[in-house]
């Protein structure tokens, strides 16, 4: 499934994780074979969750190293966001990806960023992951653009997606949400 990660000198994301307040998966996506088995993945998640649990990553994104990987992370309410990259990766690029993920999720969940809401809208979260990184390559880092891509059901009507404003993206996100709930 995962593509091998040898893209020359390209910045590469190894995984993106969204865990709950007990370290359980809400949504995760691995882009490399560093953790080949399910148990290896779980062990990695458990270790970064316990090691970062006590830190304060609520106002600013935090950063740590785990067995020659760099992990940037941010916590909001009972949700823990993680982005992992190799140890020679530019930390700020990883932080940008994390911020994009976090912003997009915030928009899509209408600022109601918590586990229950995230599970309720798991489809949006999964689409969001799909739009941020493709097989380790960074696709998009702007949260509003990501949210816009996830939420818009029709990109043809209206301006090109990259020119969409946050409020527009939010509006489309909200529209999608209400629609899916009302139906």
């Amino acid at each position, binding site marked *: 499934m995962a593509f091998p990660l040898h893209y020359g*000198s*390209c910045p590469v994301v190894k995984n993106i994780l969204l865990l709950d307040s007990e370290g359980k998966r809400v949504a995760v996506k691995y882009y490399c074979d560093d953790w080949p088995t399910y148990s290896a993945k779980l062990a990695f998640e458990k270790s970064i969750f316990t090691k970062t649990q006590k*830190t304060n990553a609520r106002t600013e*994104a935090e950063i*740590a190293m785990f067995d020659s990987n760099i992990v*940037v992370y941010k916590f909001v309410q009972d949700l823990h966001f993680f982005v992992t990259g190799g140890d020679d990766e530019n930390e700020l690029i990883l932080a940008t990806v994390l911020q994009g993920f976090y912003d997009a999720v915030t928009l899509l969940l209408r600022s109601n960023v918590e586990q229950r809401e995230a599970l309720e809208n798991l489809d949006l979260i999964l689409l969001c992951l799909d739009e941020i990184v493709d*097989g380790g390559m960074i696709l998009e*880092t702007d949260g509003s653009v990501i949210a816009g891509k996830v939420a818009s059901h029709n*990109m043809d009507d209206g301006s090109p997606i990259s020119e969409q404003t946050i409020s527009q993206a939010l509006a489309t996100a909200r529209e999608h949400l209400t629609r899916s709930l009302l139906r």
Partner: protein
Amino acid sequence: MAQPLVKKDDDRDDEMDYSPFMGIEKGAVLQEARVFNDPQLDARRCSQVITKLLYLLNQGEAFTKVEATEVFFSVTKLFQSKDIGLRRMVYLIIKELSPSADEVIIVTSSLMKDMNSRTDMYRANAIRVLCRITDGTLLTQIERYLKQAIVDKNPVVASAALVSGIHLLQTNPEIVKRWSNEVQEAVQSRAALVQFHALALLHQIRQNDRLAVSKLVTSLTKGSVRSPLAQCLLIRYTSQVIRESGISQTGDRPFYDYLESCLRHKAEMVIFEAARAITELNGVTTRELTPAITVLQLFLSSSKPVLRFAAVRTLNKVAMTHPMAVTNCNIDMESLISDQNRSIATLAITTLLKTGNESSIDRLMKQITNFMSDIADEFKIVVVEAIRSLCLKFPLKYRSLMNFLSNILREEGGFEYKKAIVDSIVILIRDIPDAKEGGLLHLCEFIEDCEFTYLSTQILHFLGNEGPKTSDPSKYIRYIYNRVILENATVRASAVSTLAKFGALVDSLKPRIFVLLKRCLFDSDDEVRDRATLYLNTLGGDGAVVETDEEVKEFLFGSLDVPLTNLETSLKNYEPSEEPFDIYSVPKEVKSQPLAEKKAPGKKPTGLSAPSVAPTSTVDAYERLLSSIPEFASYGKLFKSSAPVELTEAETEYAVNVVKHIFDSHIVFQYNCTNTIPEQLLENVSVIVDASEAEEFSEVASKPLKSLPYDTPGQTFVAFERPEGVPAVGKFSNTLRFIVKEVDPSTGEAEDDGVEDEYQLEDLEVVSADYMLKVGVSNFRNAWESLGADCEKIDEYGLGPMEGLTEAVNAVISLLGMQPCEGTEVVPSNSRSHTCLLSGLYIGNVKVLVRLSFGVGGPKEVAMKLAVRSEDISVSDAIHEIVASG
């Protein structure tokens, strides 16, 4: 519109642990997935089911092959629905299910239809899905669409095609390389991310073409790149080009200005990438470093932990090579010791340890002691390593640093951490003699209460080597014998060996050691008993014939002279029989050696760039190897062993190189052979040497190699006699002769019958330089004066047309095979004359010094005055003869 939502919220509050996926079960969801087959599709319901399936996959639930196939087939039906939301979920689940090649065909047409849809979102996603699941054959069908998509006006579509191209390049490079025109066009795109993806793909297409990459960098650094991510890429490519091009004639580094200008970019990501690139430049100068250090220093006081971390990590690396450049940041660093983020604090501490000076150590250590208690083991290890290198840098401070190490050794910690501390103490003991006694006692105390068998045995081994040489060896005995009483069998056995070492080296302790060893004879473990018996016997504790002191020491302290891997293979091949295992049958050649030789083929023939004196260890190894062969034992002491000379081209069937061993009146060729054919076993391998062009030599012995299996190096030897003291030279032609047997690769068994065969090797020459040992002198003038003018010979030679002085100097040095002194082998450019000083040891252990004065005579004519001083006038003459005939 909002009301139902609120109501739903209320509902949820009743149940604290509400989750939409509570009690979800794979079987039930797979049942639910049957709605995909309904003739009237309920898009919303289908979306929900797909979400549930994705949820299961995400939670690590494994689908069997049958289940996955079933789900995949029913999902394909959903392409009928026009619902866009559902279509997105369909794309997602197809990617997650990663269908097999024969299943892919089912969706190919649907996806190809979407690829040509008017809806951009369909196009972008269909491209990504199709490229993800496709194989090469399908790719040619859709190539045309992909090329179009790369230059699509919609950036999402273009990015999708470009990123897919990057992935496909790994599997189908030849196809993706055909897109380079379109990709090049996309690099100019106005959309930031498209530019980034296009640049990444373009570079990967061209990465093996240095010139093209260089051109790409040259054109783009002039400034058409907008996206910060693309800018970061460009910085990386630029560093690559810089690495490969080196510094220009004027001393300026190409593209440095570009990197420097990126330090003023508005995006932090780009600033940092550029700063990091500058610090990693080869041979970066302080002037080049300064602007980068300045921006990193600003980052140190940023409110964002990620920025602080990135900056301190980079500065930490810089501190390893340019500690002075980082000292400006020391104040900012010190405030980072109290940083909330412990990774940042640890990096700050270790950086300070690297840049600190002798006077600041004590203050720093105090800060670290407080800090150590609240960081994780992995950080502690980093600190311990930093302290070790600090201590080696400032040996006078060993007391406080050693104390620190022993304190933390007593505290709680895992194996890796303790090992790091023990390793550090061992290194300090080795390198700082004053620290020895204290350090050994710290280690002794540690093993009194050590839960790690590995560390205990390591320390006991070390103690056995170092303890007896201290002023009061008896004080360690108690700690060692305690191990015999208290520990597990492995540690006990190790303690017995250590006791024996004390007994062997310290005569006054011998009787007491015997008492202790005798007690060990009743140990419950056989290894411990065996060791005790063995040592009592060798040391003479049981009244038996005592072996000589030398042999005992060699046995106890000598290193194993065969590579462990070779010993292991030999032991595995050994079949229990009447015949005891013979350790001399183990090949002594280190396997990796021939490979290492091949890496630097250019260096070998000249021997100029070889390090001053061959490392004694290889000489020792050769000496031991040769003395173990009875035929050569009578030849006396080995004078010189040459560097291996390759007799075969790289990657031939049999790889052979030869080492020339020079004795007083003999010469031994050691042929190192490797058989690189798995299907063959060679037996009775020998080298037939034709010495018709080397009249003064006569063959006296030949030692064939019994068998040469695949990939296990072996040696065969041929020995020649030559007139004593005469530096006879000559040319030898070599033929490898052997019996070849076919080997069945699956079983590894060789056939019984073999065929005799020969393999022509390249010729080998013995030259005068082989009789000269490169031995340097520290002060040439003193050595020259002390040899005196008694045996001096001076003469002048015309060397004929030469390219330059450098060539002349190198030619004479390699002809004589002597060691250049005081850097005089380097000729300053444009000089008209040069003096070169050489020293060496001639066969018969005669010291020789040579002073060469070169001058440029006519056009490219080089003249040389050769002055030789030695301990023997005949040797001085011989040197002149070498030059005259060379």
